[in-house]
């Protein structure tokens, strides 16, 4: 397993570099249209101001040099300062926002995977049965309806009508743990609904196959308990393809938090990025894209590790 993880970690290095190049390149493309210095000097900028800022920020250097300089300081955790507010560092901006995004995404994955697995198992135990048909219709509906629309409906009852959860805004766990949970539950449910559907579908199909396989038949013939047939024999096999599906969904959920952040009025990475694009805040844009990219890589690593834990063949391969 250590060897397997080591290989995955090594494989991350070129990906990390690619993410850095892409983040930098996209930001530079924005810069070509609206000048960074222009946005620093503000409206009615003088030529002197622009020239001075460009020299100060090293914007007149060739691209590769600027990239290496940016990457080198990024490696130390320094992502520069915001162009619209020179007194604020990009890292502190990200640190301020990333907690909301990560907690919503992680929470949504926990809800989505747990509910999806429960539904998938119930479906697979009696495929074609009443429960299976009801759950399959439900998951088809979840795929068809955008999750945040349903979450808004939910928010009407749970938050506005009954006041159980907060309808908008984000409370930090440092302020209040219960407040934090109340504030992220609705956005997390919104983000989790498509995950539920995806996991239910994938697990239903792989679990149905597993339960009809010869090794389960052999276990039945040995008198193995029904709960253990499902939990110890079929489920670990059926989870192998399901984990891959969850991995895709985790990356997609990170991309989608931005809609959820807008709907629930939460200041997270999504809003930070959109604002940075609107104000052509190149340093913030570069930095946040890099960080989001790294988060996606880490999620992939976690998925690969769980895949290896489930599949001895992958884990022990040399």
């Amino acid at each position, binding site marked *: 397993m250590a060897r397997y993880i080591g290989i995955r970690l090594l494989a991350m290095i070129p990906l990390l570099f690619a993410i850095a190049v892409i983040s930098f390149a996209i930001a530079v493309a924005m810069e070509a249209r609206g000048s960074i210095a222009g946005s620093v000097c503000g409206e009615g900028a003088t030529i002197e101001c622009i020239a001075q800022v460009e020299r100060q920020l090293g914007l007149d250097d060739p691209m590769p040099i600027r990239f290496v300089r940016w990457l080198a300081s990024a490696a130390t955790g320094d992502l520069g300062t915001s162009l619209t507010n020179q007194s604020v560092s990009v890292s502190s901006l990200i640190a301020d926002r990333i907690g909301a995004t990560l907690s919503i995404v992680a929470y949504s994955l926990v809800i989505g995977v747990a509910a999806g697995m429960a539904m998938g198992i119930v479906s697979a135990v009696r495929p074609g049965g009443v429960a299976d048909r009801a759950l399959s219709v439900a998951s088809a509906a979840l795929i068809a309806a955008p999750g945040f629309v349903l979450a808004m409906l939910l928010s009407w009852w749970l938050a506005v009508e009954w006041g159980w959860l907060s309808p908008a805004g984000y409370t930090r766990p440092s302020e209040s743990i219960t407040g934090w949970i109340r504030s992220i539950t609705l956005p997390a449910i919104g983000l989790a609904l498509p995950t539920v559907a995806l996991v239910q579908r994938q697990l239903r199909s792989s679990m149905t196959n597993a339960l009809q*396989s*010869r*090794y389960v*038949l*052999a*276990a*039945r*013939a*040995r*008198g*193995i*308990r029904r709960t*253990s047939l499902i939990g110890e*024999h079929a489920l*670990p*096999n059926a989870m192998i393809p399901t984990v891959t599906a969850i991995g895709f969904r985790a990356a997609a959920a990170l991309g989608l938090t931005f809609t959820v952040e807008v709907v629930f009025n939460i200041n997270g990475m999504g809003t930070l990025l959109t604002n940075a694009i609107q104000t052509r805040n190149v340093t913030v844009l570069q930095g946040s894209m890099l960080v989001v990219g790294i988060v996606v890589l880490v999620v992939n690593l976690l998925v690969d590790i769980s895949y290896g834990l*489930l*599949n*001895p*063949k992958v884990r*022990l391969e040399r």
Partner: protein
Amino acid sequence: MTAPFLEVENLHVHFAGRSRLFRSAMPTVKAVNGISFAIEPHRTFGLVGESGSGKSTVARAILQLTDVTAGTIRLDGADVTRVPREAELAFRKRVQAVLQDPYSSLNQVHQVRTIVGDGITRHFGIKPGPEREQRILALLDEVGLAGEFLDRYPYEMSGGQRQRVSIARALAVAPGLIIADEATSALDVSIQSQVINVLRRVQADTGVAFLFIGHDLDVVRHVSDDVGVMYLGYLVEQGGADGVYDLPAHPYTEMLIASVPVPDPAAQAERRALRQTFKKDTEPPSPSDLPVGCPFANRCPVAMDICTELMPEATAARHGGHVRCHLHTSGPVLAGESVVPYIRSASTAR
């Protein structure tokens, strides 16, 4: 003579075609149509027949993995045709299986320790630990695997090794009957005989009765004391293994024998000639639409008019068993003798 451990009497297994909303009803598949045989302790009954003849269905019916439509199954004299839920565990301890295909019948995510050990835990209540470990090692030794296999996963083993693990897994609960469904069919010839030797040793050591299922009459005869030849859910011929092989009384049995290649060139040429007389490419009838007469009639080189009109009854054969074929009561009246000379003369006359 010892009392049989397993008795199967007039077993029928039909799969009812379920009718569903918006789907036309599927016809009933008559997979097993009234077969009877018995196996004593220390003995092996071989069931042979082409793909789709219903061999695995017989195995599943005995194993309580599919519903019996009609007939009786007895274990040690007690009726086990439909085992109630509360008696299931006790039943499973007495009948075990080694299934077709060593690749899919072992769980890929379990180590040999778990594969062989979970039956011990289930049936003897021995939790994972040194005592269970000892038992597993003894079982592995019995099937000729070293202790290092404890930590192996199925993908780290060859087909023959996997099948040995399957045998150890079946032995783990100390059953009175082991059903081996095509247990050696997927293996190379040399590995096949190794696994067969393991089965023989196990039988000598434990006295377990075997139901050995296969499609190769040569192999089945080798392993078995008695054999039954299945065609389309019917047992068309049964008797002592060597008797059936040497004096086949049913044309289908003769066809199975002729389809096995032999090393002697003269004998091989003879078999090839014989093979050509059978309509090998003709499909057997569908088990959901059985003919009224003999199920083999459309492929039989010596079929008569009566064959398509009347199902032949079982009659005594020269080898001491039974045969279901009109040749023994109508037409040339072989009266239980071997069908071989008759088919030979019929094929040369053509």
